[in-house]
Structure formats: structure tokens, C-alpha cells
């Protein structure tokens, strides 16, 4: 394995961002003990060297003393590759596939540079992992949400957000598919009082309507189904999380709406909270989105970062499929086809990266654009040998969903130098490392997720 152009990436970083800002690393020790500082190294024996303002000399922490290290979240701005390479030992790395031949896969990653990975070290690749088709992003103007709407007068638009001072209604229609993701941020001054309707047909002056709504009040968060039949209102999700649990008076809401399966998944601040099934016979077909702020005048409420995306979990579903015969490669297309055979190669082409695949049921090889492919499973044979397992090691958490088993590490201002059981020595941009978790010796399981 080589990572050939990390200095270039690192140079770019210095040129564009200047010297990295001072970052506080947080170490979780046994019990609730913790230390902050700057990690300098982790030697092959597992001793962690921490530079701390609390001590004139670096603090040397014994093996097993540190459970977890969290690095300060890096700044946004790096475009993450849309591929996710899975190694034979289960490690993951977000990567852009450059090419593949009979022996080696070449990938690029902004934090590791280009890597050459032996084919025998590969388990799978997922494509388009971070690609989510945006359908709407806003708000971009007051008129967009308040045109021809009664109750719009209390809205104000500034800094890409809608602010209500008094009861207010905002409405927008967006053509959404059967499955979509609806994200927004709610902010309140004293006590939240929001109702957010979605999949709403926006039928004027009708009491009979099929739609969903999220209600956030001091008693908690609820997602409900309003129906034109009976019963009129039915619960989908009930959460008792009141505003006290959001001390900054703000919450990021994400609703994953699957009208095909009649399911809604609720995420708050990026964490999954609950899922619920629409109890009605049919699902609402509307495309309207409505924000209702019911707080009195003087108690302002804000709505921002409204995003509506295509809800596509195809890749996750494909990746969780049964591996099947491990002696052959398998390719799953975005259309759900799955073929077994031999992946002869991947190479750049004018139309994009192209996979050449020999199916067991075709004489001519298949030429597949990467954009048509969801998942590749790589074959493994007995000749590939056992996957090496690092004892007494760490999992390095990388941005973009990466995680790598490593042994000894050294840290500079710009890079982390580590030893990977399949890739050997490698250098990773320090900003790309978001955390480290200690593995129990002899037990390949995370100590603390």
C-alpha cells in the first residue's frame, strides 16, 4: 500500500487554511474521569502521550487507561467521496474509486491521500453513499413561504430563517416522491409551540384532509396522522422529550417519510429517536409543507435550514444483503439487479468511472457506469489467508463514516501516522480523525460506542 499524495493534500490545507487551529482532544478514562489536551502519540505498547496545559511535561497514560478519545469536530467544507470501501476486517473508508485491476484497487480520500489497496484486502464497496438528491433547500425568501397565506403577516425573513412574532402560518408546496426526508431547525425564545404539517394536499377550507403533522409543545413531541375518514387523528410517534431536554432552545428535526411502507422515522439533533407506522389504510399523497407558530406576540420562534431530500436507503439495504457465494464477486445495481461473476476491472471513462463485470450468464462482459452501481462484494478464497487481527489496538474514527483498526499512532500538527493491519503504515490528515476507541485486548469489540 502507498498513500502517495498526502503531502499535496496537507500542503493544500496549509495554503488554504493556514496552520491548523489549536484543537482540544478529550480523553475518556475509567469511570467518569477525563482529560483534555493534545494527543502526541500512542506507542506500540499502547501508552498514550498527552500534552496538557495541566502539566509541564507530557502525561503518559498506561495502556488500558484510556477508553476513548474525541477530537474536536473538524470544520465543514471538505467534499467527502461518495464511495465507501469496506476492508476484509470490517474497516471502512470513504473513498473515490480511481481504478481496479486484477490485484489492486486505487482510491482517493482527502484525508489519507491516494491509497493502493490489495484486492485480497477488500470486502465491499458501496457507491453514492453521501449522495442525497436535494429537492428543496431554504428558506430563500419570505414570499416563497407566505404568498397568498393568511396569517403570514407575523413572519420576518432574515439570515436565511423565518422568524415569527405572534401566531403565524407559512406554506410551501414541493413536489416530493413517495419517500422523502424533511429536515428543519426549530428555535424558540421561551416555550416551543410549533405544528408542522407535511404530505399535506393544501386543500383550502376543508376539514377533511389526509396529512401528517408534527407537534412540539411543552408536553413533548408528537407525530400524528390526520385523516379524512375516522378516526380523524391517530398517533404515529409519541415522545415525552420536552423543551427542557434542549437547553439551547433549539432542535434539529429530521423526518424520514416512507409513504410506500407507511412508516415515519424521527431523528432529533441527528440521532434516531423513534419510528412509527401510519395506522390508516392509505397514505397521504399531498406535497404541501406548512409551519404553524402558535406562540404569542413577544415570544419569537424561528425556523431555518429547511431541506427536503430524496429518501433513498437502497445502498444500506443492499449492503446488508446476504453475501452469498464468497468465491465469486457480486454486483448490485441501483435498479436492484444482482449479478455474480468476476469484476474484471474499474477504469475512468469519458462518461464517468466504468466497471467491467463478467456475469456467469453472459458471454460479453457487462460495462456498468459507477452511477448505476450500488454495491460490490469482492470474492475471497482460502488462498487469501486469514484477515490479520490487531491485538490491543484502537479504532480510528474518520469523517465520512470511516473506521480503521490501528496499532501504534503518532500525532503531528498536521497528520496522524498509524499502522493498519491490511494497509501497513499510513498517514492521515489529523483533521480527518474525529475520534479513537480502545479495543479490549483479544476482543474485537468496541469498548464504548
Amino acid at each position, binding site marked *: 500500500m502507498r498513500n502517495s499524495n498526502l503531502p499535496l493534500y496537507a500542503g493544500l490545507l496549509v495554503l488554504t487554511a493556514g496552520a491548523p487551529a489549536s484543537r482540544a482532544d478529550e480523553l475518556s478514562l475509567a469511570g467518569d474521569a477525563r482529560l483534555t489536551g493534545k494527543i502526541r502519540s500512542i506507542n506500540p505498547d499502547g501508552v498514550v502521550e498527552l500534552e496538557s496545559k495541566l502539566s509541564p511535561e507530557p502525561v503518559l497514560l498506561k495502556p488500558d487507561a484510556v477508553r476513548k478519545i474525541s477530537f474536536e469536530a473538524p470544520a465543514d467544507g471538505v467534499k467527502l467521496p461518495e464511495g465507501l470501501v469496506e476492508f476484509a476486517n470490517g474497516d471502512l473508508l470513504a473513498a473515490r474509486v480511481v481504478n481496479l485491476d486484477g490485484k489492486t484497487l486505487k482510491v482517493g480520500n482527502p484525508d489519507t491521500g491516494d491509497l493502493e489497496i490489495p484486492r485480497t484486502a477488500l470486502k465491499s464497496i458501496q457507491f453514492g453513499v453521501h449522495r442525497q438528491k436535494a429537492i428543496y433547500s431554504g428558506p430563500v425568501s419570505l414570499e416563497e413561504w407566505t404568498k397568498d397565506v393568511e396569517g403570514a403577516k407575523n413572519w420576518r425573513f432574515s439570515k436565511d430563517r423565518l422568524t415569527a412574532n405572534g401566531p403565524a402560518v407559512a406554506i410551501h408546496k414541493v413536489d416530493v416522491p413517495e419517500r422523502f426526508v424533511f429536515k428543519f431547525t426549530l428555535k424558540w425564545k421561551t416555550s416551543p409551540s410549533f405544528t408542522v404539517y407535511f404530505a399535506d394536499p393544501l386543500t383550502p377550507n376543508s376539514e377533511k384532509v389526509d396529512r401528517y403533522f408534527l407537534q412540539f409543545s411543552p408536553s413533548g413531541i408528537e407525530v400524528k396522522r390526520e385523516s379524512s375518514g375516522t378516526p380523524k387523528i391517530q398517533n404515529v410517534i409519541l415522545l415525552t422529550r420536552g423543551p427542557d431536554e434542549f437547553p439551547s432552545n433549539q432542535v434539529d428535526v429530521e423526518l424520514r417519510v416512507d409513504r410506500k411502507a407507511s412508516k415515519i422515522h424521527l431523528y432529533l439533533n441527528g440521532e434516531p429517536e423513534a419510528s412509527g*407506522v401510519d*395506522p390508516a389504510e392509505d397514505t397521504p399523497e399531498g406535497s404541501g409543507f406548512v409551519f404553524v407558530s402558535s406562540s404569542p406576540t413577544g415570544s419569537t420562534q424561528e425556523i431555518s435550514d429547511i431541506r427536503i431530500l430524496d429518501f433513498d436507503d437502497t445502498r444500506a439495504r443492499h449492503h446488508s*444483503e*446476504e453475501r452469498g457465494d464468497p468465491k465469486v464477486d457480486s454486483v448490485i445495481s441501483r435498479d436492484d439487479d444482482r449479478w455474480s461473476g468476476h469484476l474484471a476491472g474499474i477504469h475512468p471513462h469519458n462518461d464517468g468511472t466504468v466497471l467491467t463485470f463478467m456475469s456467469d450468464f453472459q458471454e460479453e462482459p457487462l460495462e456498468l457506469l459507477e452511477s448505476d452501481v450500488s454495491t460490490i462484494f469482492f470474492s475471497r478464497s482460502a488462498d487469501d489467508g486469514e484477515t490479520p487481527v490487531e491485538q490491543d489496538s484502537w479504532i480510528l474514527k474518520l469523517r465520512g463514516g470511516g473506521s480503521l483498526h490501528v496499532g501504534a499512532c503518532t500525532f503531528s500538527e498536521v497528520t496522524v501516522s498509524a499502522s493498519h493491519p491490511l494497509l501497513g503504515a499510513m498517514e492521515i490528515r489529523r483533521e480527518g480523525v474525529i475520534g479513537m476507541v480502545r479495543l479490549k485486548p483479544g476482543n474485537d469489540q468496541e469498548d464504548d460506542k
Partner: protein
Amino acid sequence: MIRYLTIPWMLAASVLMADEPSDLLRFTNGDQLHGTFQGISERQQLMWQRDDVAAPVDFKLEQIRHVVLREGRPVKPLADISHVALVNGDRIPGKILELDDQTITMDTAFAGVLRIPRDQVAMFAPNPLGGRLRYHGPFIEDEWKMAHAAFPEGMPDVEEGAESDENDEPDQPGRWTFSGSGWYWKSKSYGTAIIRENALPDRAILRFDLAWRNRLSVAIGFHSDLAHPPEKEDGEDGGDKPVRNRRALGFVPGDSAILPKLFGNSYVLQIFSMQMILYRTSVADDGTPTVERVQINGSGPRLGDTGKVTVEIRSNRTAGVISLFMNGDFVAQWDESAGGDYDPSRFGGKGNSFGFVVQTESSPVKISDIMVAEWNGMPDSARSMETEDQDIALLTNGTDRFSGKVESFRDGKIQLSGKYGQFVFGLDDVAEIRFARNSLAKETEAPADNLVVQLSPLGQISGRPVSGDAKSIRMVSPVCGSIDTSLESAVMLDFHGSNNFIDDWDAEF
């Protein structure tokens, strides 16, 4: 309630053909007769022979519900379960000879060569279920037993002369009723299981049709060892046996505590209209029954009040992996080893039996078309593929699937034209081909005089009966034309096998 014909010659009859299995004739009014099926006359009458009458008796076809041949046992079961499934619900076993844009030609063991319009064929399965068929039924009542928490070893026989399906005695558990090729639960009570013992391999596909009225609450036990807590001495738990039995009858609807008493060490899937739960039930050495919930990975069902669904459970008992499909769509998966605590001794299923129990009041249920096959272990995620515009070929390896248009079958190979080129498959590689839904003919209601011939181990063919004898029947199929159907592999002639399942709920079926 089943009534018996009261004509004089019937009263004289006692035992019929003790050595050879007799046929059973059921009428639409609930009457029934044992005897021998002699055929169908051109006057559209069914000819029936009994030892106690001099000549065969003729019965009007419109008065006949069905005939169970040879107690559900075929003279010669079909050797091959390769088949096509038609839009009208027929499943025609046979080997494919030709396929083109217009027609699929099948060579059948029971009716010779049949030419079937392609738009009538919803599915072709050269190697159905991805494994070996172990059971298809129910056609024979004796292969099943009933159990209840008060009678875990089996329900007592119905007393001579008692109304055999009188289910609603307050101190007696209800009973399942066997009719034709289905088990019916029409009691107002709940809690009696219908069980088939020693029928499920360790890696199994269990598929069945479930129809219900009102709110659905049914539990399916599988990989059950039917171990039961030891019988307690009188007074040991504060009551004598009759008292305990009455308590057992008093279980709250949906109560999962009843499940280990019915199924022992087992997996039990509870299906409600909007929810489902998988339990691991167990009976400890000291007889203590326990019920644990297994975490789910997937969505819940959306089943209304009254409906019909084809349920398929794919389970690997030793690996603790269970997948659930409904109407061919993936619904959920459970993995006992998920979470890292891999301990096969804790996995639920310990046996090879399965069964069904209704768990709520006034919830009639019908279980039919039950199939058990060995499973190759693949969850077959391909089964959830949309098939509106594309034909889908699912391969026997359980993972691979190809979409496109099936062009032809020639030289023993299936040709499929896909988005990415032409593919050629040998028949041995293909489990199923599902034809694009929008290329299929519309399903039409079966005519009133429709006859469905049920075949063993798998298959059914329907048409209007024209004539026939004890060995074969001529019928006219709107799909295949005139067919001479040998009855060697047949187990039932269903004269009122409407696709409208509600018909089966007539109180006096």
C-alpha cells in the same frame, strides 16, 4: 355444524372400504358422505358409489362443495414441483417446453401438453422455494393435532354424537375445523392451536395463506419442540385439574404467557393488524415457562380488519436467523446473533414442529395452502423487487436476480434481455421468473360452475367440468382450453373454490 344425510340407506352404512381410503363428498349445505367418486356425467351430475346402494347415485354439481379423494392421498404424487402460477390462481405443475411472446407451453404429467397464453402467467418456477418441498396441504386432517393450554398433549376426542364443531361451550376450548384444503377457526373463543409435528427442517421455508375477519391476532409457532411443563399435582398451585383447565380457558386475548404451554421451546410470531412480535418461548427443566421478545429489524405489517395475505417465514434454527415476507414483499428480519452475544443455546427454536393459534375473541381465521420446504439459507432480498415493468429472474443461489424481458426458452435455456445486455440461464439456475405486472391479463371472477382440481404435492387447475370418470375429468379452462385431467395425482375436487375468500366464511360451509 355438519349435518348428516338422513336418507334410509345412509343409516345402514357403518364402515366403508376398511382397507382402501374412501372419498369424501361434502355438500354446500354441510351434509357429507363417504364413498367413491365415479365421475361426472354429461348432464352435469356427480356420480357417487357406496357399498350400501345398488347403483351410483347422481348429485347436482351446484349442490356440491368438494370431493376429497382417497382421504387426501394421491395414487401417484407428481414427481416434479416445477410449475407456472396463473393470474387466476391456478398453479400448473410441469416442465416447460417452449416460451415466446405469446405462449408458454408446458408438459404436464396429469394433462399432457398445455399451451398457456403468456399474459395469463404471473410466475414460472422451475425450482420453486429454492429448495426441496417437504409438505403441501392441508389435505389430510389426521396429519394435524389440536392442543390447548388446558390440554397441551392434545385435545380430547369429541364424544360420539356430539356436534363436531360446536365450539362455544363456555367450559370447553374451541376447535379448529378442517374443510377441503384449509383449517378454519370460527370459534368465538381463542387459544387452541392446530399443530403439525415433525415437519419443519432446521433451515425451513414455511409459507401459508392466512385469511381473517375482524381484528387479526394470530400466533405462529415454528421450530417448536412441544415440550410441556410437567403436570402439577392437585393442590400444588392452589387448584385441582378442572380448576386449572378453567383458568387456562380464561387467558386474556393476546396473552403471550400461553405460548410456551402450546409450543414449548419455540419461536412464536404474533401477527396483529398493525404490529408483529417475535417471541422466543422456552420451558425450563423444572417446567418453568418463559417468553422473551426478539428484537426486530424491519417494518411492521399493515393488515386491515378482514383480508388475506400470503405469509412466508424463512428460518434457520441453528443460526437464529428468521426473515418474514408478506405477499412476496420483505417485511422484517430477526437475527439472534445480532448484538454480539452469540449463544446458540439461547436461540428459541429447539424442535421441528409448527402450528397456529388465534389469540383474540371473535376473530375467524382460515389457514390454507401451507407449504414447507428446505431453505438454502439465503434471505432472498430479491423478492422485494418491483415487477411492474420488468420480468424478474430469481436464481437458485438465493441472491442473484436479473430484470428485463424474458424473450424465449429454447435449447433448454432461458433468454433474458436486460438493460445491460442479453443473459442466458439454464433451468437449473433459475428459482422463479416473475413476469411484469403490467403485461398480465386482468384477473376475472371464476364462473359459478368452476371446478378446481387440487394436485399433490403441489398444484391446482381450474375449469368448467364437462364429463369424466373415476380416473379423469374433462374440463374447459378459459386459459388452456379443453383439458383431460388425470386424477392420479389429484387429492381434491373443489366445486366452490371461489377466489373470494369471504365465501368460505359461510357459517355452514
